[in-house]
C-alpha cells in the first residue's frame, strides 16, 4: 500500500474545495455549461443518458479495505448501491447528482481517494499490473514508478489542456497484464546490461476510431530520467498534436503523421535540453516514494498446507482454485482473482454490500489489500494458501466465486447504450447472453483461455480491437448491429483483431459467437492451442467460411 502524507492529503483537500466552489458557481449561473464542462470532466464527472456519471481513480489498481468500504459508502449514500469497475482501474457510479458531488469527493478524500483527471484532455489515471509487487518474476514493483508519475501528472501546469486525453500504463513483468501497448505511453520496466533499472518507452498506442499498437521510441530510459523524458514527449505532443479534429487529436495520430523516427527525434531534441534539469530523479527522491509503500510481513508457510489437501476432495473448490488462484512470490501464499463476471450479470459491477464484504475478507485474508485489474475483475494479492478453502466459501456466499477467470464468459464490456451517451448499441445485454450460453464450466474449460471484449461504440472503451473476439456495436437505420473481429490481443504480443464478416443484428450475436467458438474447437491443432493462436496460425478465412457459410 502507498501511504499518503500530509502533502498528498492537502492537495486532495484543496482540489475538493476548488470543485465545491466550481459546482456552486455552476448552480448559481456564474459558470456556463460550456465553461463548466471541462472543469467537471477534470474531476471525473460526465453527463450520461440518465444522470451524471462519476469516475473515481484507483491509481495502479491498489485499494485498501478502508478505501473499498468508502467506495461502498459512496455507492449507497450518493448512488444506487453499486459501482462499475472499468478497464482503466477506475470505478464509476452511474447516478450521482451534481449538487452532491462535492460531498462525495470530500468523503473519498478522507481515505486518500480522488477523481482528479479521470476524464478530460489531460493525463489520466496511471495504470499498472494488478499483480504488482506480488507476482513472481517481476523486475521490481512498478507501482513505485506509477506513483512517481501519478504525482508528476497531477494538476500539471503545462499539460492540463492537451489536444486530447492521455493515458500511461506500466508493467514490470514479462507478461503484460496492463495492456501497455494500447496506451499513449506504455512503459516496460527492465534492466540494461549494466543492471540499471529503466524503461522501454512505447508511444502512440490506442484504440478508438483509428487503432494503433504503440511503437518503441527508446529501448532504455534510465529511471532517473523518466520524468524528463516523459516531459519531452508531452511537450512535443502539446505543441504539435492536432487540435482541429477531435478524432485526430490523440498522440497516436501525431506519431503516425510525423512517422515514428521523426517523432522520436523531436522528443530526443527536446529531452537533451531538459534531461539534466530539475526533473532528474535522484535516488533519495525515489527512495522517499518507495519508503511509503508498505508490504506485508509474510509468515513462513508451507506450499501445501493440510487445509488445502483436505479441500482438494471437493470438486467445486478445486474447480475454483484451478481457475482463480495464481502463484505468489512468497511460498505458502497466493494471488486470488475475484471474478466480477457472474453468469447473467453486467461485467465489472459490484454492489455496495459485495464491496463491504470483500473489504472484510481482505482484512481477514489479504492484509487489508485489494487490487483492481483492467479485465474488470478484482484480486486479493496476499492470501495464505491455507486460507483458500475458507476464503472460497466466503466468496461463494457473496456471489464472488464464479470460476471463469480468463475463460469465455470473463467478458470485458463497456456500459454501452444502457448508460452511455456516446454509445450506438448496448453492450451489457450481449455480455449477459454470452455468459448464459457459456455457463457450463466444463465447456468453458474445454474452450480454454478466450477473451471476449465488447464496446458499444467506436470509442472502444470495451477494448474490442484487442479482444480475442471483439464485438463492436454500431447503428444501422436505427437498429443495433455488431461487427465482430477475431485475433486481437492486449498483452505483450498485442495485436488488433481482424473483421470476420458483415455486421450482424442484436439477436444473432450470441449465435455467431457460438459458431466462432465451435469453428475454433474444430480447427485447433490440439487442446493446448489457444483460440488466439489458432487464428494466428490459420488467419481469419477458415473462421469466416464456417461461420458465414450458412448466413
Amino acid at each position: 500500500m502507498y501511504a499518503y502524507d500530509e502533502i498528498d492529503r492537502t492537495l486532495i483537500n484543496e482540489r475538493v474545495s476548488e470543485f465545491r466552489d466550481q459546482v456552486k458557481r455552476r448552480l448559481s449561473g456564474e459558470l456556463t455549461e460550456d465553461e463548466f464542462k471541462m472543469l467537471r470532466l477534470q474531476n471525473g464527472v460526465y453527463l450520461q443518458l440518465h444522470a451524471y456519471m462519476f469516475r473515481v481513480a484507483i491509481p495502479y489498481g491498489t485499494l485498501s479495505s478502508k478505501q473499498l468500504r468508502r467506495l461502498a459508502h459512496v455507492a449507497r449514500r450518493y448512488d444506487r448501491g453499486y459501482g462499475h469497475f472499468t478497464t482503466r482501474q477506475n470505478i464509476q457510479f452511474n447516478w450521482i447528482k451534481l449538487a452532491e458531488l462535492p460531498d462525495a469527493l470530500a468523503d473519498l478524500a478522507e481515505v486518500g481517494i480522488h477523481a482528479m483527471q479521470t476524464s478530460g484532455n489531460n493525463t489520466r489515471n496511471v495504470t499498472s499490473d494488478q499483480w504488482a509487487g506480488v507476482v513472481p518474476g517481476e523486475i521490481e514493483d512498478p507501482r513505485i514508478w506509477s506513483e512517481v508519475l501519478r504525482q508528476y501528472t497531477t494538476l500539471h501546469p503545462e499539460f492540463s489542456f492537451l489536444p486530447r486525453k492521455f493515458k500511461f500504463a506500466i508493467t514490470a513483468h514479462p507478461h503484460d497484464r496492463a495492456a501497455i501497448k494500447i496506451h499513449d505511453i506504455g512503459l516496460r520496466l527492465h534492466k540494461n546490461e549494466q543492471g540499471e533499472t529503466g524503461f522501454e518507452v512505447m508511444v502512440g498506442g490506442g484504440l478508438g476510431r483509428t487503432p494503433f499498437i504503440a511503437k518503441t521510441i527508446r529501448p532504455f530510459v534510465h529511471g532517473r530520467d523518466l520524468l524528463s523524458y516523459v516531459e519531452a514527449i508531452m511537450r512535443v505532443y502539446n505543441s504539435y498534436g492536432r487540435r482541429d479534429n477531435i478524432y485526430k487529436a490523440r498522440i497516436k495520430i501525431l506519431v503516425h503523421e510525423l512517422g515514428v523516427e521523426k517523432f522520436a527525434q523531436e522528443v530526443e531534441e527536446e529531452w537533451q535540453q531538459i534531461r539534466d534539469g530539475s526533473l532528474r530523479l535522484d535516488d533519495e527522491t525515489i527512495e522517499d516514494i518507495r519508503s511509503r509503500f508498505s508490504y506485508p510481513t509474510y509468515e513462513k508457510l508451507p506450499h501445501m498446507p493440510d487445509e488445502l489437501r483436505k479441500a482438494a476432495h471437493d470438486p467445486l473448490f478445486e474447480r475454483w482454485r484451478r481457475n482463480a488462484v495464481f502463484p505468489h512470490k512468497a511460498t505458502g501464499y497466493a494471488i486470488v482473482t475475484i471474478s466480477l463476471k457472474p453468469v447473467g450479470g453486467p461485467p465489472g459491477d459490484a454492489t455496495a454490500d459485495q464491496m463491504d464484504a470483500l473489504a472484510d475478507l481482505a482484512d481477514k485474508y489479504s492484509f487489508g489489500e485489494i487490487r483492481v485489474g483492467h479485465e474488470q475483475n478484482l484480486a486479493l494479492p496476499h492470501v495464505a494458501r491455507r486460507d483458500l478453502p475458507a476464503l472460497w466459501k466466503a466468496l461463494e456466499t457473496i456471489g464472488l466465486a464464479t470460476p471463469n477467470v480468463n475463460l469465455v464468459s470473463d467478458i470485458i464490456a463497456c456500459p454501452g447504450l444502457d448508460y452511455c451517451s456516446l454509445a450506438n448499441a448496448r453492450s451489457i445485454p450481449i455480455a449477459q447472453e454470452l455468459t448464459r450460453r457459456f455457463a457450463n464450466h466444463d465447456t468453458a474449460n474445454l474452450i480454454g483461455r478466450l477473451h471476449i471484449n465488447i464496446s458499444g461504440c467506436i470509442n472502444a472503451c470495451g477494448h474490442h480491437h484487442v479482444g480475442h473476439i471483439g464485438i463492436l456495436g454500431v447503428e444501422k437505420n436505427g437498429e443495433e448491429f455488431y461487427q465482430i473481429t477475431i485475433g486481437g490481443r492486449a498483452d505483450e504480443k498485442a495485436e488488433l483483431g481482424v473483421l470476420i464478416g458483415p455486421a450482424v443484428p442484436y439477436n444473432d450475436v450470441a449465435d455467431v459467437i457460438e459458431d466462432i467458438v465451435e469453428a475454433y474447437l474444430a480447427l485447433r491443432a490440439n487442446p493446448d492451442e489457444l483460440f488466439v493462436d489458432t487464428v494466428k496460425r490459420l488467419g481469419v478465412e477458415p473462421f469466416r467460411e464456417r461461420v458465414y457459410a450458412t448466413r
Partner: protein
Amino acid sequence: MPLVKGGKIQADEYVHIADDAALPESGAVLVSAARFLADPELVLQRREKVGVIWPNNRDVEDLVPYVERLALIALVFPSFRDGRAYSQARLLRERYFFRGELRATGQVLRDQFVFMLRAGFDAFDVKKQADAEAYTQTVKRYSVFYQPTGDGRVAAPFRRLQLRHSESAGL
C-alpha cells in the same frame, strides 16, 4: 477585459496597434507577430516599451533574438481548452530567460490562473470582471505542487526531502 498584473486590476499601459495603422510617436505599443517580424528593428528602435502578440501555433524560438529587448510578450488562449501557450510560456521563461511581462490573453478564466502562474505568466487579460476581482482568492487555492517549474515554488518531492532532513536533524 480587465488586466490583472502584480495581483491587482490595472489600466493597460500598452496600446494595441493594428497592422495597417501607423505607430504612434510615443507610448508603449503592442503589435502583432506578423508586423513585428516584418521588421523587428523598426519596432524595437522605439524608445518606449514594445510588446508582441505571439500566436500559439508559432515556435517561440523565432522570438529568441529579441527577448531581451521586448518588454511584453502576449500569448494567446483562443479557447481555454487550447493549452499550447502553457508550453510557450515555460519555454520563454525557463529556456530563453524572458524577463519581461508575460501576458495571458484570449479566453482567460479564473480556473486557469494557478496553471498560468506556474507556467510563468504574470499578467492576465481576464475575460470576466468577476474573475479578475477573484484573482487574489483564487491563486491561494493551492499550497501544494507536485511539479517543479520555473516559477520558484517548491515542488512536493523537494518539500518532502526538506521535511525529512529537518526531522532527522532534530529540528
